[in-house]
């Protein structure tokens, strides 16, 4: 079976003056269709770097990233924009809704860039908003909603284009624990419905809600396996710097 996401020895360097920051150091893993994977690690471990690469917002400095079998490193900016639009749905910590647009228009944006005609766009955006329980608020502006509701709008926006992968970067980070659980519940439902979900978090208790965990530290993969294995949630310090479990 072909992997949906495949990292082959991916490295990412940031150059700051004379210093080189190694944000990703030969990271390799595969994610298959229908999986629910959490990428977990402390702040600075390289999660956002991985997320940017998976999300085609950035390209590896070294190594190969294949998304649905296509080599993202070889793509130009327009192709990256297209593949983002076609294959990826983003959920951000800060929701990242456009404040001037109402909910319906916000959810329509990805479809607009995909060139979907207006009427169909309206229809699909409405359905997506109904799915996250906001069908009655489509004319509201984002700032008229609670954080949890805004995050549900961003989930609707991530879903509306029927992407192959849903990428959630700290989706519960700005929410209280109850609404955070609600949002996680929705992600689990999506997984149950057959969607591929990649969840990025620093919080072990959230990571264990996923099916599989990839633990990062200092740009390395420290652990990659099922979330219910005991090593999955071991803190990096306790695990020591000794070795990387395979």
């Amino acid at each position, binding site marked *: 079976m072909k992997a949906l996401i495949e990292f082959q020895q991916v490295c990412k360097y940031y150059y700051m003056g004379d210093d080189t920051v190694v944000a990703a150091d030969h990271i390799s893993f595969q994610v298959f269709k229908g999986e629910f994977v959490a990428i977990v690690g402390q702040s600075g471990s390289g999660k956002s770097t991985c997320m940017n690469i998976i999300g085609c917002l950035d390209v590896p400095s070294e190594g190969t990233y294949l998304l649905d079998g296509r080599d993202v490193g070889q793509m130009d900016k327009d192709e990256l924009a297209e593949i*983002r639009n076609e294959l990826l749905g983003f959920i951000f910590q800060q929701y990242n809704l456009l404040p001037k647009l109402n909910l319906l228009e916000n959810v329509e944006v990805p479809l607009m860039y995909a060139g979907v005609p207006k009427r169909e766009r309206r229809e699909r955006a409405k359905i997506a908003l109904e799915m996250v329980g906001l069908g009655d608020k489509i004319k509201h502006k984002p700032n008229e909603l609670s954080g949890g509701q805004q995050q549900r709008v961003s989930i609707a926006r991530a879903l509306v284009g029927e992407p192959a992968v849903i990428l959630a970067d700290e989706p519960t980070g700005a929410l209280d624990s109850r609404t955070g659980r609600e949002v996680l519940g929705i992600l689990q439902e999506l997984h149950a419905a057959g969607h591929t979900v990649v969840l990025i978090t620093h919080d072990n208790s959230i990571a264990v809600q996923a099916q599989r965990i990839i633990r990062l530290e200092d740009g390395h993969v420290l652990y990659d396996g099922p979330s219910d294995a005991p090593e999955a949630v071991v803190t990096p310090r306790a695990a020591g710097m000794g070795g990387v479990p395979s």
Partner: protein
Amino acid sequence: MSILESVELALKNIVSSKTRTLLTMLGIIIGVAAVIVIVGLGNGLEGYVAGSFSDMGTNTLTVTVMSRGSTRSLSVDEMYEIVAENSQYLDLCSPTVNMMGYVKIGSETLSSTSSMGVSEDYFGISGDTVAKGRGLQYSDIANRSKVCVIGAFLDQAYFGGNAVGETLRVGGTSLTIVGVLAQSGERLEEGGADDCLYLPYSTASRISGEISSYVVTMRDEDHIDESVDALERALYAVFASDSYYTVTSMAEMLETMTSMINILVGVLAGIAAISLVVGGIGIMNIMLVSVTERTREIGIRKSLGAKERCIMQQFVIEAACTSALGGITGILIGRGLSVLASRVVTRLMGETLTVSPTAAAVGMAFGISVGIGILFGYLPAKNAHVR
């Protein structure tokens, strides 16, 4: 994303920040309005000048003789002879004596009335027709009759329409009114085309001295140069020098005046156009700020699959819409000011001057403002996609 959708989005953005948009557009509004009013004024001026010349007809030549200092002089009969000898080019001729003295009717002194001594052919040259009474006749000239023909304004304003048979005074000489001309201006007004008086040139020269200028009509307006040449050659033969006379063609004078007005208007419009450019820089400023302010929006849109081209398009169209809106507002204000200026000038000068912007000026001002919007929207947008 289609252009139409971009326009929709741009308008939404413009409406959602009205104050900023208004400030952005201000330069464009002022620039466009200024260009329109200035070009309109120029047109009005040109129309006014052309109008005052056409009173005289563009097929006329004016001869001015300055025989002081010369041993030779030119009599009226000699001038008639010259015209008759060149009859293949020249047609009618009349001496013109401008009267400096005021016209007096009863105890009232009229300062704006133009009074002129002319021959019996003059009304044929100027195209005036006699509405009441009679025109000037050869016998009036020969006898130095103390008669005159007046314009419709004087007839209406001072004689209640019954001027024929009444008298008035010019430079101390009492003249009997024998005829009234048909109205030739748009309105009967003081200082207008109908505030005039004509008397025999012979009578006039007795009041105010030597006859020194003539109007001559040409048979064919296409032979201005030949006609002028013929006259000049004949006059040279009389004076044996070219420093005692000038021959001016009305058509050429009109052309000179028109081109002078055009240069003036061009310079003024150029200055106004600078404010358009300044307005454009204003747009660029706001666009730059807006690009920086909206890096977050740009980032979000990119993550949702927007190509750089789409984002560029969005900013450029927003700038273009802003400046187009400014352009339209400027056109409306410019038109309003033109109407106002027409009224003010007409009231102040007592002359009818219609400030009328040409469609070309309006179109150009609008086109330039949109062009500036696109250009100055494009530059910061280029910045946006670097991020």
